């Protein structure tokens, strides 16, 4: 039988995992998963700096094992930033989990290779990761477990952004199975 693979969001110190395969998750300024939380928005800066969401850590998990192996993992966006003016998103894979932090209701700690030491490289614009040019995610699995590197991303807001909830964006995981 084919494996059953879900997408988890990792939060908290543990970390805790939440299956977000069939739902959305918010990137705001608190380290929890929520589909519609608005109490901790990313503030819009009044100067030339940026404010950030808490970084969002996601990872695949098999709840039913493959016949043999899952490998060749990739992650990509739809190539078009639909968040609106002044809102961007950066991301990169990471070999370990680092809990998100920052000032709740204001800004997260910026996602950098310095602040998140196990990032594969410096985070970059996720909209450059496309179906034809995705981000390769190291890792594989033969069993039922969380597997592969995590994909970590962060929404960034500058002073040109408008208030309110942004439109949703969709990220895609891709992998091979035998």
């Amino acid at each position, binding site marked *: 039988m*084919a494996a059953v693979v879900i997408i988890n969001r990792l939060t908290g110190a543990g970390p805790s995992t939440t299956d977000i395969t069939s739902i959305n998750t918010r990137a705001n300024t608190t380290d929890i998963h929520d589909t519609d939380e608005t109490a901790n928005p990313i503030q819009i800066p009044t100067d030339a700096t940026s404010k950030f969401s808490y970084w969002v850590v996601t990872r695949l998990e098999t709840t039913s094992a493959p016949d043999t192996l899952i490998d060749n993992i990739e992650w990509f966006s739809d190539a078009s930033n639909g968040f609106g003016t002044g809102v961007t998103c950066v991301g990169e894979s990471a070999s370990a989990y680092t809990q998100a932090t920052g000032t709740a209701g204001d800004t997260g700690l910026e996602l950098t290779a310095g602040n998140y030491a196990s990032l594969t490289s410096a985070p970059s614009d996720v909209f450059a990761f496309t179906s034809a040019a995705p981000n390769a995610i190291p890792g594989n699995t033969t069993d039922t477990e969380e597997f592969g590197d995590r994909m970590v991303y962060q929404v960034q807001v500058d002073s040109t952004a408008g208030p309110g909830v942004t439109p949703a964006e969709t990220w*895609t995981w891709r992998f091979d199975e035998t």
Partner: protein
Amino acid sequence: MVEQEKINWTAVYKDGKKVKRVKGITYDTLNRTNLKAFEVTWMNIPVVTVHLQDNQQLIWRRRNEVTPGGLSRIVYLCGWRELINGKDVQTITYIFDRDKFPPEVHVSGKFDREANALFYPPEWREFEVPTKDVER
């Protein structure tokens, strides 16, 4: 819940013996000696048969896409790889499982992501790497 797979395969050997993918018989454990053909079925209806020559290495993958929100896409790669005059050559059939019959089938030579974002190589197994160079 584990969804029943619509696509399955059967290996066909030179002596006429057939081996179907079942629990315990997988693509990776399949005996490749005297393998003659690889039949792919959709709900037990034949859709693609790959005929193999002695030096052609079978290729099979289930390529999956999954997104938050529950959207998903599945394409099966089925074909062969061989070494001809020192060149690594592939012919791959891409079977798109879109929950309708017949499934949409594409055939391609080299892996070419410019033609289709899904037409890229798998991570090779040792048994998929051709060792004998064929002159043609």
